């Protein structure tokens, strides 16, 4: 579905980002992968290039740091690696009630989840304009759409992504650049591991399909939004939550 395309994925070394990279590689897309963890990225590049007839370029990027992002984009453009799809996946979830929220957690959450997404989107325009079109897929969260106690900072950062997606889709539609967002529910990744049994039981009971989501569930929806199957779809926020109710 993506043969001949190039996709940039942030936060690509694990969890949902890695699942997206694997599925997109399988579908024939060349990849530009961002992560702070260059060691893991090297292993992923090696594995994907051995498994599929694609090229993978990796970049050590701290998505909280605009200089780090700019440096990676400068290299990409210097090498004329104009890409078709941007997946803004990098994210951080720090649970805290508002009263107990530390300034550092607030900054880290917003710099990663909001500023990182905005900076990458802005710097990607050069590529999409050159390609005369493109697709941006932003990873928001069900918490951003519905809210959750103890997650006001994380939830508001993800709600910002929904607002960003809706406005940017209107701005870029005349240029054939589509912008959509996904709001995953409870997905089984490192980000959601390490909780007590009650936490899982409570969350499972709120999911209509009675199972946790898998990173691959999100990857499949991302593929749909990246591919020409969705070429008349923009400004949409799609839930990937198995019927979860918050």
């Amino acid at each position, binding site marked *: 579905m993506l043969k001949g395309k190039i996709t940039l994925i942030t936060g690509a070394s694990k969890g949902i980002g890695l699942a997206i990279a694997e599925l997109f590689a399988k579908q024939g897309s060349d990849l530009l992968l961002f992560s702070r963890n260059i060691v893991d990225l090297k292993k992923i590049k090696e594995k994907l290039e051995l498994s599929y007839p694609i090229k993978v370029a990796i970049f050590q990027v701290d998505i909280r740091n605009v200089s780090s992002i700019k440096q990676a984009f*400068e290299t990409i*453009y*210097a090498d004329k690696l104009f890409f078709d799809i941007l997946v803004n996946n990098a994210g951080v979830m720090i649970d805290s009630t508002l009263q107990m929220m530390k300034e550092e957690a607030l900054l880290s959450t917003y710099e990663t989840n909001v500023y990182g997404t905005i900076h990458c989107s*802005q*710097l990607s325009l*050069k590529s999409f*304009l050159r390609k005369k079109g493109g697709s941006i897929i932003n990873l928001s969260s069900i918490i951003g759409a519905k809210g959750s106690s103890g997650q006001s900072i994380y939830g508001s950062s993800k709600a910002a992504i929904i607002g960003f997606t809706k406005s940017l889709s209107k701005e870029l539609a005349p*240029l054939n650049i589509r912008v959509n967002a996904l709001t995953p529910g409870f997905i089984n990744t490192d980000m959601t591991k390490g909780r007590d049994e009650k936490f899982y039981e409570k969350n499972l009971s709120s999911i209509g399909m009675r199972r946790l989501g898998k990173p691959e569930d999100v990857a499949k929806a991302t593929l749909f939004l990246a591919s020409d199957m969705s070429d008349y779809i923009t400004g949409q926020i799609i839930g990937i939550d198995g019927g979860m109710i918050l």
Partner: protein
Amino acid sequence: MNNQEKLVLAFVEALGVDSSVVINDLKYQGIVEWDSISHMVLISQLEEAFDVSIDTDDVIDLSSVAKAKEILGKHNIVF
């Protein structure tokens, strides 16, 4: 095609205007055709025509034809 002709062609194609309109004093949002959307296309046309990558700050700063020449001058493009 010399650099001046390349520059004019980029503006003509991006803004959909006649070449006679493309003078040094032509400013961003000075005509209806040079709006925020066509500005994005213009940047892309200039980058492609001159094989350069225009910095984000310069994208914002590119507010006239004269300024475009000044910014391209940073990339050793001479007019």
